[in-house]
Each structure stands twice: as structure tokens, then as C-alpha cells.
């Protein structure tokens, strides 16, 4: 039977309103609530459902990040992943480095499928899955809204700008998830207790023989331009008049 590898990222919780540091060196992340990137949570849920359907026998959840990322991996284990791997690294890395790290884990674990989110909601890059697929020389299906596995073939429906597109992939392959693929389950307390006993292995970039590459140097981070406060109108007549006055109608 086969294995599914799920790549997750620890990010600022999606409900947090981000503020830029006054000195322009980044965004404020101290004492901010952290969580699993929502798209990655969907990826994990899909892997768990595939396992429940008997398509896979094991779900391995992997991440790259600071030691605190163990919290998110424990949550993933509580959701139902069988074991976890953390490649500990204190600093942000570029997606190409992340893909190289995940390739090492793929080579180690030989999964049938890798599932990850289509993008992380912190840097909004949306690259790691595709890069991993390229380095691994395997098919990719991005922005998945439906996944069917039949033997060694996956049929994946993707949300694209023109509507929905279906691809057929020879496995192994990489799938990145979109919002409507599923709704992740809630974690129950007994599962959290059980998850504490599940294996969580820690590795380092060094141990994997990877050096973080750096192509993009962030010189500063700035807040977006502030929009001028708009006007409130009392009724439809005033709305139409205002629109005409602004030249919008």
C-alpha cells in the first residue's frame, strides 16, 4: 500500500489583520496567533479522506520551519496524520529551497502522492508544489477541487480562470489544493492526547545536504497606500447622482 506526503506551512492565522513594522523591516509577527496554512489544511484533509477510502495506507505530514512548527505538526497528527517530519530552520526560505528540501523527503519516503496548498497565505507565492513536481520530474495538478484515484492514475479537476479543467495524471504526482476541495475536520480533544504519542522526527537542512539559496533580497516592506475615505449616501437616488457626478455612469 502507498503513502501520501502532505506539505504544510506554519503561517499567521488567516483572521489576523497584518501590520507592517514601522521601520519597514517586515510585518509584526510577535505574539500573533499562528496556524496551519488553510490550503495545507485542506491538503491534509484530502489525504486523510483518501486513506479512509483505502487509497493510501499512511499519511505523512512534513514541514519546514522554526522549532515552534511542532505545534502545527501536532495539530496535523491530531487531525489524523500518522507521523510527522520537521525540517527545522529558523529563517524564511525561498520556494525553490523548500521544493529541494521536499524532494529529499520524497526520495526518502517514496510517496504515491504529494498534496500541498496552492499557496501560503503569508507570502502568497504559490510556487512550491509546482517546483517540487518539476524537480521530481512528475506530473502536477494545481488548484484542485476534486481528486479521484484509480490505481496508478489520478483524475483531478482544477479551478482555472476559464472554469473547471480536468487532468489525468500518472502517479506519483503532486497536487495543490484549492478552497473548495473539502472542508477540513475539527480536531477532537482525545485526538490531541493521542497525537502526543505519534512519531515526530526532526531534521535539518544540513543533514539533508541542502544550502538555502537566496535570489530575492527584500529591501523593505511597506504598507499599501491608504485609500481616501468614501462617502455614505442615503438612498438610490443619491447613489445614482453621485456616480454620475464622479463620471462612473
Amino acid at each position, binding site marked *: 500500500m502507498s503513502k501520501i506526503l502532505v506539505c504544510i506551512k506554519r503561517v*499567521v492565522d488567516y483572521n489576523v*489583520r*497584518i501590520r*507592517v513594522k514601522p521601520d519597514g523591516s517586515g*510585518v509584526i509577527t510577535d505574539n500573533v496567533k499562528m496556524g496551519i496554512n488553510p*490550503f495545507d489544511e485542506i491538503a491534509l484533509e484530502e489525504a486523510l479522506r483518501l486513506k479512509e477510502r483505502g487509497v493510501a495506507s499512511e499519511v505523512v505530514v512534513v514541514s519546514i520551519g522554526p522549532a515552534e512548527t511542532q505545534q502545527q505538526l501536532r495539530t496535523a497528527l491530531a487531525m489524523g496524520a500518522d507521523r510527522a517530519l520537521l525540517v527545522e530552520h529558523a529563517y524564511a526560505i525561498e*520556494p*525553490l529551497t523548500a521544493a529541494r528540501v521536499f524532494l529529499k523527503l520524497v526520495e526518502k519516503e517514496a510517496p504515491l502522492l504529494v498534496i500541498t496548498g496552492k*499557496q501560503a497565505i*503569508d*507570502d*502568497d507565492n*504559490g*510556487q512550491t*508544489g*509546482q*517546483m*517540487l513536481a*518539476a524537480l521530481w520530474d512528475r*506530473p*502536477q495538478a*494545481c*488548484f484542485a477541487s476534486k481528486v479521484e484515484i484509480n490505481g496508478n492514475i489520478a483524475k483531478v479537476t*482544477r*479551478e*482555472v*480562470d*476559464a*472554469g*473547471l*479543467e*480536468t*487532468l*489525468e*495524471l*500518472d502517479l506519483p*504526482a503532486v497536487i495543490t489544493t*484549492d*478552497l473548495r476541495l473539502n472542508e477540513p475536520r475539527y480536531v477532537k480533544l482525545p485526538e490531541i492526547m493521542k497525537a502526543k504519542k505519534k512519531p515526530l522526527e526532526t531534521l535539518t537542512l544540513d543533514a539533508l545536504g541542502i544550502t538555502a539559496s537566496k*535570489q*530575492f533580497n527584500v529591501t523593505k516592506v*511597506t*504598507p*499599501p497606500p491608504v485609500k*481616501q475615505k*468614501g*462617502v*455614505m*449616501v*442615503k*438612498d*438610490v*437616488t443619491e*447613489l*445614482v447622482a*453621485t*456616480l454620475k457626478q*464622479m463620471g*462612473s*455612469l
Partner: protein
Amino acid sequence: MNKILVIAEHMAGVVNTSTHKSVACALLIPDAEVDVAVLAADDKAAMHAAKLAGVKSVINVTRNEFTEFVASTAAPAIAELAANYTHVFAPSTTFGKDVLPRVAALLGVGQLSDIMIVNGSHSFVRPIYAGNALVHIDADPAKKLLATVRIASFQPVTETGDATIETANITASLPTHTRFVERSSADNAGPDLQSATRVVSGGRALGSAENFQLIYKLAKQLGAAVGASRAAVDAGYAANDLQVGQTGKIIAPDLYIAVGISGAIQHLTGIKDARTIVAINKDSEAPIFEVADIGLVGDLFTLLPELQKQLGG
């Protein structure tokens, strides 16, 4: 001299406006020569691409494998074409987001996502955290620069050009492990959401797919495209390709009318560049009013018919 290759997005022989906008972004690179690559089964899209103003050459690759564009299949071909260029750009649409990171990894380089502002040949601004922060980036000039272009940030080039069309042959072997099966589009009459000058969007407050027809009616009257919030799409009121926001479409119409949309930050990031934002919502505390140029508090089921009546006169 910077040599930039823009990967054309096209369908049924027609080049998508996202390509025109990506070319516009590429032309902002100092001392640049801009070519457009067209990977297709025939010459039609290449002929169209040759009209894009500012383009020097269209690099035309015709192969049966490109009848339907599949990123896994096309990436090695694009990587091969990239050899002659300092920069490779693609629109930050599902087309470009899918294929370009794969090309970058094949070339052993990184990729920049969503260029908003060009400050130099290797100096750019891009959004992070759903546009709640902007990062200023200097890319290593020694490396080939691959980037997707945030199309809402650029005006399309005109179709007044006359580029030469060059035929390119690809020697890379193209994988067959990923196969196109089908594509289905919701029947969206009216203008295309991503290039429309007016957009009317509906949210969860519409309450049903049937009520969502109110949005279609108003849009039709205004010659506008129809959009939707994530909540409306999740609830099944509207098709997925209508979703506007961080993970849907990022749009920049002249007029955006948000009806019954509360305005989650993920939605607001998709409409930031709209020139005029109108919000109609019964909750005066809804965050949509913080970004709206014109706000109207009230029940959409009363206000929409009234608005239609007044516009119809």
C-alpha cells in the same frame, strides 16, 4: 541589454488580455527587448500576438501537444526557449501561476510572483499577506529572472504592433504523464470578469442561486461582468470562476459594485485597484464600507430593483 520573453496565454486562437498586460509590464524594464512566446497547435494565436504593440518578435512553437495547454507538458519547452533571455514573464492568472514555477525549477532558479511595480531591471514591488503589505525586492542580477505579472496593476498594450513571427523548434522531449481530459465553463454571458470596466458582485446575502439572478440583471443593464464573493461561491449561488479575491480573481474595473458582500480581507485584496467601489449592504458595520468610495446601507432586495428602475429611465 535585457531580453524579456513573455509567455502568451491564449485560447481558441485568441491571445488573452492578460498577455497584453504582461507585455506592458515587460516594456517597463529599462533597456529591454520584448518577445512573446506562443505555444499552440497552429499559427492563429501567434498572428494575433504579432499585433501587440512593443513586441519585437513572436516566437512561435507549433506542436500537437499544445492543442490544450498542460503545464507539465509545456514547461520543458518554455525552459528551452528561456535560454536566450534574461527575463521570462507570464501573467499571474491560473495559466501563469501553474506553469512558470515549474519552468523556474527546471532552470534551477527562483520565481517572483505578482509584480505590481517595476523599479528597475531587477527591482520590483509585490504584495504579500493578501496585499496588506508590499515587499520591495532586489533580485540577484546574475540569475535569470522569472516572474508572474499581477495583471490588475498594468494597462494592456494596444494591438497596433507588427512583430515578426519566428518559428522555433524544440528539442526537449515533452512528457506524456499529464493529460488533458476536459474543460467546462459556466455559461457566463456578458463581458469577461478580468478585463471588464464594470463589475457587479454578489455575496452571501443574496441567499440563493435564484436570487443571485438579481446580480446578473443589474450587470446586464450596466454592461458589466458578474463577480462573486467566496461565500457566495461556496454556498453554490455562483460558479467558481466568478470568485473575486486573494485566491480568486484580482480585478481592476473602473466601477465595482459589491452587493451583500461583507468584505473579508481576502475579498478586498481582489478589488483594491478598482477606481470606484460602491458597497450596498444592510450592515453599516461591514468592512466593505471601509474601502468603498460610495456606501449605501439598506436591504438589497429593496435597493436593487429601485436602482434598476432608476438606471433604466
